[in-house]
């Protein structure tokens, strides 16, 4: 499902963010990507989610070669995945309903289906009662649940989360991780970049550790 083969990413400097990364992830897995700040987690995340291209090597995600994605092919690739950010990336002056419905609107889904699906996914994240609220009226945990709902609404095969609990207190972080586990249990591959090693230990999932741009260990 995800294959990294001999992937290098070098930024001007030169700064070698990723060095000879080789990795295979199968459908339905729950993976934690861990490592200290500056280890290359975000670069890895960007390549995985099609927000950047490798300097050399091949990154294959859901059958698409990310290394060769053209600008016009990017939207179609992103429609297949769900992405969650640490800073939520919600549009402040749109309601929760409008924010969550965006991926389906972009795909040209019918209004009736959008309404049904948004209410369904909001129910999954326990936010049905907040559908008319604006992001600023929600707590951090609720905002992240809205972002998760948006990432899930179009039934992606792969859910990628970059530090999804980075801005949340431990209780809310646990709540979000439980939600991601539920999503994974339904068959979606979940890839989470985090530096919260305590939580990773507790969850006992597959872990890819990266240090100085090199995969150190796969646990």
């Amino acid at each position: 499902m995800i294959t990294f083969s001999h992937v290098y990413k070098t930024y001007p400097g030169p700064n070698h963010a990723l060095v000879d990364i080789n990795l295979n992830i199968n459908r339905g897995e729950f993976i934690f990507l861990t490592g200290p700040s500056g280890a290359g987690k975000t670069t890895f995340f960007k390549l995985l989610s099609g927000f950047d291209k490798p300097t050399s090597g091949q990154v294959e995600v859901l059958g698409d070669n990310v290394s060769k994605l053209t600008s016009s092919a990017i939207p179609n690739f992103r429609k297949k995945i769900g992405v969650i950010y640490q800073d939520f990336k919600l549009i402040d002056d749109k309601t929760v309903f409008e924010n969550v419905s965006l991926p389906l609107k972009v795909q040209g889904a019918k209004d009736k289906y959008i309404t049904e699906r948004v209410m369904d996914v909001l129910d999954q994240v326990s936010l049905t009662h907040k559908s008319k609220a604006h992001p600023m009226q929600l707590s951090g945990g609720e905002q992240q649940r809205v972002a998760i709902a948006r990432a899930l609404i179009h039934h992606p095969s792969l859910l990628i989360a970059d530090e999804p609990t980075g801005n949340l207190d431990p209780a809310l972080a646990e709540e979000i991780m439980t939600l991601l586990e539920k999503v994974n249990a339904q068959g979606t591959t979940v890839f989470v970049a985090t530096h919260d090693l305590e939580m990773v230990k507790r969850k006992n999932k597959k872990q890819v550790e990266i240090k100085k741009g090199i995969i150190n260990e796969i646990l």
Partner: protein
Amino acid sequence: MKYFKLFIEQLKYSWVKKFSLQVTTLLVLMGSFLAVSLTLLFLTNFNTTVNSFGEKFEVSVYLTDQNIEENKSKISKIINDSGLFKDVSFVHKDQALQNFKLKMKKNMPSFVLEEKSINPLPSSYALKIKKDFNSKAGFTKISEFADKLMGEEGVDEVAYGQVWASKYTSFLKTYKLLSVGIVLFLILSIILIIGNSIKSSISQRRKEIEVLELVGASRSYIRMPFIMEGAFMGFLGAGLSILVTYLAYSWIVNVAESNMGVLLNGMSLHFLSITLCVAICFLGIVVGSVGAAVCINRMNSGWAATNE
């Protein structure tokens, strides 16, 4: 149809959620186009006035006293064949004297009563030039025609205010160049002003563009509503500027007719032609959409969501 629906949604969203930004953008657009509309209104009326001077322009052909009737038909043919004049009238020297006496009736009654006075006035043609010749090229033709006529037998003099005509045509040339310059300068200025205004409007929605890229919106999905909104705002700004110009024009006409009737001396003011109004609205659409397209092109690279 898909993009039109998106455009309507975006328009509703912009006016409801970003009302003050939209009003500011619209005012800037309207102000810019108002400068163009008012300048064009001034130039249109100034042009009419300037051309009316030319239309009043006359050429006088004075004949010698010998063989008047014989020469008259020959000269008349030359004048008509030239095609330069819209009105040709012949005044015989006897008629010229009668006219002169009528004019001098009050000032020189004794002269009017003289039955057999010496007649120093010549027979003449008064020629009014066609509108087509109200230009430097036209006056050159008249000048050539006058030189040709001077060589004809029976013509004593051809007068057409040579010095005045020369200055008038030079003025016309400068005025036309200046008008084109002013309009071009204004158009370039509004392209810059509108471009910056739309850029600021779109910049404030950068986060939205990022999120749309993030959820897989295509380039046209992101760009078309912004471009259509730019075109709509340009059209609205241009249309409103024409409306304000019309109100200003109506007020000026009202004031001029009630307070300056004598000064106007039968001269009428004109509003912008329909063609010019349509052209201004079209300019609004073009400038609005091009401004939005250039601006959105810089922001919607497909990778905006990662360029933080």
